[in-house]
């Protein structure tokens, strides 16, 4: 495993040697910032109106967490769904397209070193986006007093979600030489996993409903967003990541045959 760092470092450098990473991260900051401030604007307006009409009893129902932070986090999940595949799309398909995969597979590296190294590089980008997300609620603590526990659990869930998407997108990237195909397929898989939960509500067969609901990423984020970290949710995402990385390992190994 001593080459993991070499692989990950090269990968990270290559993220930032083209404008792609800057554009994607910049887009993320702008969108999350916009949603945050839009929600904050609405919140302040409502609070002002409540005070005008003297209905102070209603104020208790209006919290920064519920009205500002949660919608921002929800929106950031959608952004992760699109941006993580765009970040991860090149990690293997580019190696295949420019035949540098031949260099990797004829070097004294194990498949796990290649897989983990690449994955960690994408994970670092995901971590960066989570830090950006955390910046806005932190800003609120300067002026108000939002509850911090739901913020922390929300960020953790966003990170787990991003880490799962990253693992899945890395696997998809190993299946094709085309980055565009890799990105589109990963985004579609992400969307399907997200809407499985709502779709399950229309299923009449009980066992099928429970299964679909369990498989959906949505199911495992609802509680975390309001501050409850459930071990089954964490296990779901860790299992998702482990499963994707196993598939990725097998896929990279089989590149020797393709």
């Amino acid at each position: 495993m001593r080459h993991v760092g070499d692989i990950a470092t090269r990968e990270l450098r290559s993220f930032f040697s083209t404008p792609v990473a800057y554009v994607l991260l910049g887009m993320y900051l702008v969108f999350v910032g916009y949603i945050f401030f839009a929600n904050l604007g609405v919140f302040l307006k409502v609070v002002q109106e409540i005070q005008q009409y003297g209905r102070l009893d209603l104020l208790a129902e209006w919290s920064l967490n519920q009205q500002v932070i949660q919608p921002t986090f929800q929106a950031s999940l959608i952004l992760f769904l699109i941006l993580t595949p765009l970040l991860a799309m090149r990690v293997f398909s580019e190696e295949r397209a420019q035949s540098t995969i031949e260099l990797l597979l004829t070097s004294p590296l194990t498949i796990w070193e290649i897989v983990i190294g690449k994955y960690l590089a994408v994970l670092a980008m995901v971590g960066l986006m989570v830090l950006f997300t955390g910046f806005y609620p932190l800003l609120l603590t300067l002026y108000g007093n939002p509850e911090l526990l739901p913020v922390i659990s929300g960020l953790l869930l966003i990170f787990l979600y991003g880490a799962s998407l990253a693992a899945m997108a890395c696997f998809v990237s190993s299946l094709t030489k085309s980055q565009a195909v890799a990105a589109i397929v990963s985004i579609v898989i992400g969307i399907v996993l997200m809407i499985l939960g709502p779709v399950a509500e229309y299923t009449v067969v009980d066992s099928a409903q429970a299964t679909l609901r369990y498989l959906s990423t949505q199911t495992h984020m609802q509680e975390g967003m309001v501050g409850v970290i459930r071990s089954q949710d964490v296990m779901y995402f860790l299992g998702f990541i482990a499963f994707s990385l196993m598939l990725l390992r097998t896929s990279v190994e089989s590149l020797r045959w393709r």
Partner: protein
Amino acid sequence: MIRVEGVSKRYADFAAVRGISFEVARGEVVGFLGPNGAGKTTTMRMLTGFLPPSSGRIQIASQDMHEQPLQARRAIGYLPEIPPLYPEMRVERFVDYVARIKDVAKSERAEKVEHALKACGLQDVRRQVIRTLSKGYKQRVGLAQAIVHEPEVLILDEPTAGLDPVQIREIRDLIRELAAKDGRTVVLSTHILPEVEAICRRVLLISHGEIRVDGSLDEVKGTSTLEDVFMREAGPRVGEASA
């Protein structure tokens, strides 16, 4: 240094390589000849451990490629047909990266990278981004990544393909130099016959997945030319449709 025993490679219903065997001794420079589609690249990919053979055994520097892949791969420097380069990296950083993944000890790394850059005439472009280099220079970077860990065996797949005559001569000189130094073993594939005569002392000719000729250059040529031998052994066989 290289031992190949009854190696075959089948793709679905097509046999690319059919039970070939040969040995290459330390310090030999072997020209691996054959028409396009004869199995040259497939054989080289098996030698480097990129492709697993369907059957047979390959040993590099007395390490079995199947049983001890990491040790065997460490002994090999490989320049594939398309040089494996990251276009966005700078030459020096790329060669350093390859040194790292090829297990070059940290204490020797700077020195070996320097040596590889110098041997391939890359000192002047070391800070340049690979994308901006000419094809000839890209090929040199390809050679630098193949030799940076000072492998005992060098495997070069059509190292002069697509270069202009000046670049071809430069790369050939470079290969000859690399081969002469430290008694390195070199296997070089090509379908350019003068290249073999310019660089190699031994010839292996593969056609239809089988070794047809194996011997020293003089021995193989006899009284005819290398081209005659090539046409005789690798031309379309009687009763077989030529594509």
